[in-house]
């Protein structure tokens, strides 16, 4: 990419909150001032229509407590256009809000501690599936992780947008491979021969060809085919298949949009306890790599050798979970 192209890319996102100014309003004779610094993190997205914005509500992990939902509905009824829109990142959006109503709308949301999300060059609200709480395939506490990351890192300033997601299993429903940083639950199975009754159920349960039954009906495990989904563990009637290690597959540098990238797998089976540190140190590396360079996503810094520097800086955090010599984020062909 030439310097000129990068220059162009820097100017892609325009949001009103970047203007840093105050706007005077006059609603029914009551004068007020909207301070976009006070509204701080944005989440008010300019529409085509004059003076109208889409208000993006923060819904970490796509989970919306009913009390908050009621206030979002109330706000939409009063200041929207009769409907809400569910964004692709699990946020509830209220379109057609006049900027003069921002303060009132934020007040209504605030009654249930509901918040406006963010836009622009910041850490976005993380997305997540339902995870192991009630999804039978779930392997990680995606909702708890999303909530924790939201509380700790929401709206932190970055060079560009920074999106995270938490998938509970290798189905990867919330697409960790196209996130700036993604965490996907995974498990390594372990076999206890003494408990096996040679029923062959695991060999049928495994859809990846990682378990074949031998002549006696006992499983032969083919590690390179293993998807780390845990179907064998759940299907085994005698607990001959057990969890060996469980944690997150960590992907970094993915993105969708104009030039999508598939993120690099940089750590495997990382425990929950390290997630916050990984986010913090990754943001730190990103901010350092991006200093003075404008709106460039982390994936673009990781390409052309950047990944080596990233892995070096993450060495102490990833520890034994680090992937040796990971490939860099790769372009996803769309045409």
């Amino acid at each position, binding site marked *: 990419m030439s310097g000129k192209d990068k220059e162009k890319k820097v100017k892609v996102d325009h949001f009103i909150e970047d203007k840093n100014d105050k706007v005077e309003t006059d609603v029914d004779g009551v004068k007020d001032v909207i301070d976009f610094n006070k509204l701080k993190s944005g989440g008010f997205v300019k529409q085509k229509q004059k003076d109208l914005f889409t208000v993006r509500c923060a819904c970490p992990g796509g989970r919306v407590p009913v009390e908050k939902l009621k206030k979002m509905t109330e706000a939409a009824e009063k200041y929207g256009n009769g409907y809400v829109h569910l964004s692709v990142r699990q946020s509830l959006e209220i379109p057609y809000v006049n900027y003069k109503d921002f303060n009132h709308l934020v007040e209504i949301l605030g009654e249930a501690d509901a918040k406006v999300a963010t836009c622009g060059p910041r850490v976005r609200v993380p997305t997540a599936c339902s995870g192991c709480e009630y999804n039978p395939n779930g392997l990680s506490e995606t909702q708890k992780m999303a909530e924790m990351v939201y509380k700790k890192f929401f709206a932190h300033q970055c060079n560009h947008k920074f999106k995270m997601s938490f998938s509970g299993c290798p189905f990867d429903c919330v697409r960790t491979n196209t996130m700036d940083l993604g965490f996907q639950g995974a498990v390594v199975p372990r076999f206890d021969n003494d408990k096996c009754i040679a029923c062959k159920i695991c060999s049928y349960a495994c859809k990846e060809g990682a378990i074949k039954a031998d002549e006696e009906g006992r499983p032969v495990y083919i590690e390179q085919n293993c998807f780390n989904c845990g179907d064998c563990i759940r299907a085994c*009637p005698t607990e001959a298949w057990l969890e060996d290690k469980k944690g997150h597959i960590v992907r970094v540098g993915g993105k969708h949009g104009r030039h999508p990238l598939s993120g690099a797998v940089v750590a495997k089976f990382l425990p929950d306890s390290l997630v916050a540190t990984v986010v913090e140190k990754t943001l730190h590396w990103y901010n350092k790599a991006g200093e003075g360079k404008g709106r460039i996503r982390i994936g673009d810094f990781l390409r052309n050798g950047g990944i080596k520097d990233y892995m070096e800086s993450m060495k102490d955090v990833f520890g034994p979970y680090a992937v040796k010599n990971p490939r860099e984020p790769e372009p996803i062909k769309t045409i």
Partner: protein
Amino acid sequence: MGKDISSDKSLDVRGVACPMTWVKTKLMLEAMNPGEVLDVTLDSEDAIRDISKNAKSEGHKVIKLEKEDDHFILSIRRG
């Protein structure tokens, strides 16, 4: 597998789509007494996986799987 286990009930879910394979199996198991064995005839590997997982998570015990020509018989002891 050792000695043969005789079944108390049998159920044929061939041609039945998920999740009804499990729902039918579950209803049959619940109508049985603890310790009794149900033989479920199935024709898909997905059903083997799903019924095994669900039976286990609801406290029943899968005791064997047999392949016969173009179908399988899964034996489950009611928990």
